[in-house]
């Protein structure tokens, strides 16, 4: 569902995918489907008519693979809570509260 890359040398994960690992400098990376579950790092309500209904939720979630994802939400999320990617909307993850199945 969420694709990125993982360094075969040091194990660091990157999303979007990287060509060279920013941690160890290796070019030996492989594409990988990343885990959709993680912990909410931050959440905000955006008061903008760019999406409806307004306000709409925006969150950062650190996945269990160690990458930080921006995404939309259907409701409020608490910092430190578990969240998972419920679906993809406008090419962005939409997070929902709780762990995935």
């Amino acid at each position, binding site marked *: 569902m969420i694709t990125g890359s993982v360094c075969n040398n040091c194990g660091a994960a*990157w999303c*979007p995918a*990287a060509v060279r690992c*920013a941690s160890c400098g290796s070019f030996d990376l492989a594409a990988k489907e990343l885990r959709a579950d993680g912990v909410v*790092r*931050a*959440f*905000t*309500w*955006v*008061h*903008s008519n*760019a*999406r409806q209904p307004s*306000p709409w939720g*925006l*969150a*950062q979630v*650190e996945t269990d693979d*160690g*990458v*930080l994802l*921006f995404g*939309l939400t259907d409701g409020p999320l608490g*910092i430190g809570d578990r969240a998972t990617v419920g679906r993809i*909307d*406008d*090419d*962005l993850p939409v997070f929902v509260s709780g762990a995935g199945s």
Partner: protein
Amino acid sequence: MRAAVIAGAGIEPFVGRHEADADEMARRALLAALEDAAVDVGDVDLWVFGSRFEHPSVGQRTLCALGATGAPVINTENACASGTVGLQVAVAYVAAGMARRAVVVGVEKASALGSSVPLPDWDRLGRAGVTHPAKYALDATRYLHDFDGRAEHLAAVSVKNRRHAALNPAARFRQEVTLDEVLAAPMVADPLTRLQCCANADGAAAVVVTAADDAPAGANPVPILATATGSGARVDRPLPTTITARLAARAFADAGVGPDDVDVAEIYDAFTILELFSAESLGFAATGTAGRRIAAGDFGLGSPGLVLNPGGGLLGRGHPLGASGPAQLVEIVQQLRGEAGARQVDGARLGLVHTLGGNLRELECNAAAVIVLGWSA
């Protein structure tokens, strides 16, 4: 390498919508800087222009009407740090003996962008309607969470900087605001209200760079003690803090000073949360304390010690992207010369400019610059 100075500074006041086009605004700023430096336009042998959204070759178009042709023109784009990064280019040319009279110009007619700067179309966040303040609001919520902060700690930044801007004839916003007004302003993205987000503006600013031992007769030069620029790292926590700390360490080492020595600083405050990040990563406040200190009255005009953003910052001056960095330089030059009028920081001898630029999603920022100016002893 030769030591460099800013020999002249000029600014075309920032407004919401300027009657002149970008080229004319730039000409007014650069001619003011040249007059301040007592340098003739025909003696300039390097031009560096910084802008984010202006047309290609903005420098050549600006200079054509002045008949100032033939010298190298370098047009730089590094988002909001375009002009400040341009200063390092000028310093490098002068220090290497490749230029004798260099002019750095920042210009932007940002009113053409509307009420806010859009994220680029190729950024899927931008396509989904996500804006710059929304991204920084995420960082603000995390900051308040981590450091048990309150919305008032963020709002106090806007109150301080608008108070300073009210004293600055070159600022777009000349009216003070209260804490209640900042908190009650329309919400953009929790917890950032409209008065906590910089507004686009039109304007231009310029500085003249020469060698310290070749400053023009009649100029009042301010030494450039250090310039440090860099691009953001790809990090797992995309906050513009590690690059600022890295550049500050380099600039302070090169200048032979530390953060406690600085009297006055113009630091990046496009959103209130960014002034807190900037102050803390520059070493002016311990991590997690800047908001409380500003709310308690620290860092404001009239308070003892370091003053932050005496010219009003981006929040008070307005933000014509490429011009904001040179405007920061103009403010610090005026402060160090004792020419800042009602917003003068008494006895200012050492100043600092800090600019961030850009918001690529995977990077802490696109570009950053830390400049140390003045006298270390």
